[in-house]
């Protein structure tokens, strides 16, 4: 069962530049900031209420995030729903015939995560996440 919006992902050219607005001007606290090497992104999570905003800066040019930035510019990239069992959500999606990007949950910035293919939701990229106990955030 999806319990809440975990975060919304925003693709930016420079996380440092974007932090001037999201951290400094809005005053949102940073809860995580790290490079995910295999995804080729730097991800920065900022807390807002029970959810977060995730800034995504590509660290190389051959990734989906980099291609998104090149073709569409900065802006909203995906929406992530929290679940207490991401594997169960993924299996339920498979049973419904929903096209998947990830065939199994994997570790991401938000915990154990997986993505549904945007074709399944009229172009909207959807992520499921189950935070890992002891990790940052909610």
């Amino acid at each position, binding site marked *: *069962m*999806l*319990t*809440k*919006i975990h975060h*919304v992902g*925003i*693709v*930016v*050219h420079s996380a440092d*530049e*974007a932090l*001037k*607005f999201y951290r*400094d*001007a*809005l*005053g*949102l606290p940073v809860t995580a900031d790290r490079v995910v090497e295999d995804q080729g992104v730097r991800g920065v999570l900022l807390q*807002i*209420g*029970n*959810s977060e*905003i995730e800034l995504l800066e590509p660290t190389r040019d051959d990734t989906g995030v980099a291609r998104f930035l090149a073709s569409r*510019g*900065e*802006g*909203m*990239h*995906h*929406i992530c*729903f929290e679940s207490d069992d991401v594997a169960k959500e993924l299996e339920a*999606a498979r049973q*419904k015939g*929903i096209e998947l990007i990830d065939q199994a949950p994997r570790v991401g910035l938000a915990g154990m995560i997986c993505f*549904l293919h945007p074709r*399944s*939701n*009229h*172009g*909207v*990229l*959807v992520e499921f996440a189950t935070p890992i106990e002891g990790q940052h955030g909610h």
Partner: protein
Amino acid sequence: MDGIGATHIDHIVIASNDSGAVAETFQRNLGLEIKRTMTRPGTGAQLAFAKLQEVVLEFAGPPEPKPGEEVKARLWGIVLAVRDIRAAVDRLRAFGCEVGDPKPAVQPGALIATVKSGTHGVPFALIQYEAISPATGAPA
């Protein structure tokens, strides 16, 4: 004030050429319950709403979908709830952001202000509930 005094993401807007179809897909695929639909006064835009805890998902589309057109949607914008919208607007302007003056929102008693620059490609707005008297428009 700590930053702009934002309390939570109030809503996330998903824009499309057929809000009803997109809301139905999200309901079917993700199990989201569509709690309300409405026509936006003035524009005729068709809106549908789902809510997860404090965050509303707003599905927005034109008054009439074009028959036969492929349904396309995208994440469009974010609205943050703030405690004091005038103070929040002043702070963002002090940071060099272009921000519109607060004006009455569709939600009774609420004021909304649009952040027009500095957001890194995200249409952005602030909303304060119980900011004005719905009856008189005077500050609450």
